[in-house]
């Protein structure tokens, strides 16, 4: 066993210090050490995207990053996007448009979609499907996920315009 090291991460705006072996995968740090259980473990082999989080402005599969690599970084999970009392427009849209059934892929889907809409606020259906290609869903057939993201885009753009 290699020695435990001190790491410092900012998770959903809160600076967090922890002691861990460098080999610990970030998804375990989040779920088991910090009790942030929104990001899920699906395939654990970099395919399914259920563990997607945002790290320094990049969508990353948290099962494919060591905690040591994330030292000093800014991490956002689904918990940092909205809360039960104040849903993120994407969460609202997924609920409204049946963008989920079992819900297992949903935190990863929404975290990835938030980044996608940040980079491209008016995506076409094709751009959504291409931009969401790293996230798998075994329930919906994706159509309602695409619809949800389109609806959230309209909502978020309207809110932006109203704020100006």
């Amino acid at each position: 066993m290699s020695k435990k090291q001190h790491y410092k991460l900012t998770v959903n705006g809160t600076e967090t210090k922890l002691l861990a072996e460098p080999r610990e995968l970030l998804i375990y740090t989040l779920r088991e050490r910090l009790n942030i259980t929104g990001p899920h473990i699906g395939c654990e082999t970099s395919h399914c995207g259920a563990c997607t989080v945002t790290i320094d402005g990049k969508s990353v599969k948290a099962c494919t990053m060591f905690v040591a690599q994330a030292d000093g970084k800014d991490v956002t999970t689904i918990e940092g996007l909205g809360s039960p009392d104040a849903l993120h427009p994407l969460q609202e849209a997924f609920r409204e448009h049946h963008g989920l059934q079992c819900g297992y892929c949903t935190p990863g889907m929404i975290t990835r979609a938030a980044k996608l809409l940040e980079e491209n606020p008016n995506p076409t259906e094709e751009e959504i499907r291409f931009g969401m290609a790293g996230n798998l869903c075994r329930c919906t057939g994706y159509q309602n996920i695409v619809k949800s993201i389109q609806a959230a885009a309209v909502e978020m753009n309207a809110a932006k315009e109203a704020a100006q």
Partner: protein
Amino acid sequence: MIPASFEYYRPKDMGAVIALLEEHGDDARVMAGGHSLIPMMKLRMADIPHLIDLQDVAGLGGIEVTDDTIRIGAMITQAELIDHAGLAQAAPILREAALQIADPQVRYMGTVGGNVANGDPGNDMPGLMQCLDATFSLIGSEGERDVAARDFYEAAYMTAREDEEVLTAVTFPRPNGGHAYEKQKRKIGDYATAAAAVQITKEGGTCASAAIAMTNLSDTPIFSEAASGALVGTSVDAAAVKSAVAAMLDDIDPAEDNRGPIAFKTHVAGIILTRAIERAWSRA
């Protein structure tokens, strides 16, 4: 999944990286984005007692586009490559290929340097770099040296890079004419069943030059000089494309695996190259 334990280093300069590689020899490895290495470590197919993360090492970034040369730092990610407008204009085949690599999350982390240095026959950039006649810059304790992409790959995961060397950049002449990167894969995120990189120049109605390289059809990428030669001087009609495909099929050596038997891979390689040549020619 829990990989074997390792000591982790995040040096800030290349001197420190090389010192660690010299100290630990075979027990040390550098990691760029980690999206090939980490999955192997998780499966315990790779055991790296000393892991050197390159993310903070100065001087490994940057995309430079001049009138005749393009240089890409090893730590440039596929996402950065895709988003670079100057590069998309100067060498559009790179963007076309990078968009077919893995998925968005992986492209944020996966780097050009990792893709070419890893030596995995499934990686897309090695064949592409052979098509573009790129040069790889390596640095080690004995200084810097350049190796042509077309001479770099020896066997699966075996390259001209010595264990204590680090690949720092790829450089290639600014390409001319038409291009295509055509890839057949089973699903998003998969490696190619077959992929072809093609650059063609046209003078009058005739092919003046061609470069053809194939991916995942041997234990190294295959730059097919014979296939390229079969197009030069022709009007790239059906007969010329057919002879280029025949020449390419002579050069590849696919193995049967979960992407299919040899006969299927040969069939797909022919179709993929035909499409790539036609598309590149239409853009030349």
